[in-house]
């Protein structure tokens, strides 16, 4: 297999972007990535858009994005696997370059979530699960992860405080990220005062919807070797699935798709969990990050609560995780999230992460989960 390198990155401001359409958000990230890579856009031979269509008024989003970026007539298409749509777009571009069909591709994750009214959001929220047997009882996205949390707490003794320590860490780092939605630290007292969402979760256990876009430029080995910027090599890329229905999951204390996707990614890159110097994981809810520590092998099964309590996922700990604020503080513009994770790891590998830079970050990982774990994508990125 040839190597595929990331030679350009761009990241817009996440948040309530009442000032811009989704294609305008995409443009911000794309322009930054092109300028970063110092390439002529005419050399790009295809784009992939990661986005979740049901949030947009505009139907068939790639068409309008491709036009607005000025990329006609080169090809484009959409990837959709819920919250992992951005990583699916990166994998699809990686496949295109691996196959030799493409040589230089732009991947744009973009999402406008605030176009919908609150009633429209509430209606969508009620169809997040398997609708035939589960949504008929009013299940919600937080409810599924809350049930994972209950199982984890029951089986391993994970505590309420340990859950909230994930949120405290991610807000701590989010305060240092200029692109984050929430840029202030929180306390455990404040988190415990927030409104109940789905027991044991309160508002501060949950990430927030946001608008935003991120972009990466992927190149074949031949092109990447001429890159103006240090290359982040996409050396491991795993993806896996699990049942959509919670009723067919073999266990509820972790995500089987994450275990399998990371196994594949580690094997492909020839590394193990202890080699990862910095990771971006899918902390849509506090328990999700704790399960990720375990599913990715950063710690033993059941030890995730202790891992955060001992600050092992802070800079200076064993494996710094979500030092850009994660979904929790950065915001979660669904289709943009996976691409945003990759952008942050590339920054870390290039040592461009400023006050949140992890020392000696030569190998990094992203873990991007779709829905309640029916999809998971894991990347291992390495610098020369």
């Amino acid at each position, binding site marked *: 297999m040839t190597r595929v390198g990331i030679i350009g990155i761009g990241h817009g401001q996440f948040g309530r972007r009442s000032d811009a359409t989704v294609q305008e958000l995409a443009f911000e990230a794309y322009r930054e990535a092109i300028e970063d890579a110092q390439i002529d856009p005419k050399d790009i031979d295809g784009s992939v858009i990661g986005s979740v269509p049901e949030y947009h008024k505009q139907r068939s989003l790639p068409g309008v994005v491709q036009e607005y970026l000025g990329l006609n007539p080169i090809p484009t298409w959409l990837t959709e696997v819920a919250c992992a749509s951005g990583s699916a777009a990166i994998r699809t571009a990686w496949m295109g370059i691996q196959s030799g069909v493409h040589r230089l591709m732009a991947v744009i994750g973009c999402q406008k979530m605030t176009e919908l009214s609150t*009633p429209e959001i509430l209606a969508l929220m*009620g*169809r997040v699960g398997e609708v035939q047997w*589960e949504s008929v*009882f009013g*299940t919600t996205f937080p*409810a599924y992860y809350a049930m994972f949390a209950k199982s984890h707490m029951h089986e391993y003794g994970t505590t309420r405080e340990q859950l909230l320590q994930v949120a405290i860490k991610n807000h701590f780092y989010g305060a240092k990220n200029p692109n984050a939605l929430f840029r202030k630290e929180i306390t455990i007292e404040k988190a415990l005062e927030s409104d109940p969402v789905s027991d044991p979760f309160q508002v501060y256990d949950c990430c927030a919807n946001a608008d935003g876009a991120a972009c990466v430029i992927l190149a074949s080995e031949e092109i990447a070797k001429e890159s103006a910027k240090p290359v982040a090599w996409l050396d491991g890329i795993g993806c896996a699935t699990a049942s959509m229905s*919670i*009723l067919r999951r073999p266990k509820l204390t972790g995500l089987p798709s994450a275990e399998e996707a990371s196994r594949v990614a580690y094997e492909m890159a020839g590394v193990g969990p202890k080699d990862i110097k910095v990771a971006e994981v899918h902390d849509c809810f506090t328990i999700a990050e704790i399960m990720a520590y375990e599913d990715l092998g950063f710690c033993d099964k059941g030890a995730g609560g202790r891992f955060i309590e001992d600050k092992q996922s802070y800079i200076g700990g064993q494996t710094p995780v979500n030092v850009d604020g994660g979904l929790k503080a950065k915001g979660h513009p669904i289709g943009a999230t996976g691409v945003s994770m990759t952008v942050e790891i590339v920054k870390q590998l290039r040592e461009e992460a400023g006050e949140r830079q992890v020392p000696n970050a030569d190998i990094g990982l992203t873990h991007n989960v779709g829905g309640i774990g029916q999809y998971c994508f894991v990347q291992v990125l390495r610098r020369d």
Partner: protein
Amino acid sequence: MFKWFGKVNFCPYTKVSEFANHLKDGHLMGSKCKKCGYESFPPRADCDRCLSGDFEYKEFSGLATLVTYTKIHAAPTGFEDVAPYTVGVVDLKETGRLLAWFGDTISDDEIMIGMELQVVPRIFEELPEIKVYYSLEKPGTTWSTSESAT
């Protein structure tokens, strides 16, 4: 008549629509593949083991064990008027799992992972149209006793 199933129903048409008829009559039905014998709950028309589309219904006892649960405060469209409500996932004695609300026979502070439960077919008495579901109740609770209770 699968549109009868659930307070809000999202998919009225399915190959296992008779499930809702049986539930209305007080019977909780899983499925059994006629070719390989694989039993399933929720019921399914198509066997993912042997790929046969030939199935029959099989009545389940409703005896169950609680796997996990949560009390939902922030409810989606169509469920605002019943919030907060507690849902649980149970392992069924025969095979498979289901997700349902806790019924009136169990209070919040009695709920514990691993507890024994009885799945009971229910009808929304307060709604004008036919709407059926099932709830998680204390062992020994039957369809007829839950009927007379409402």
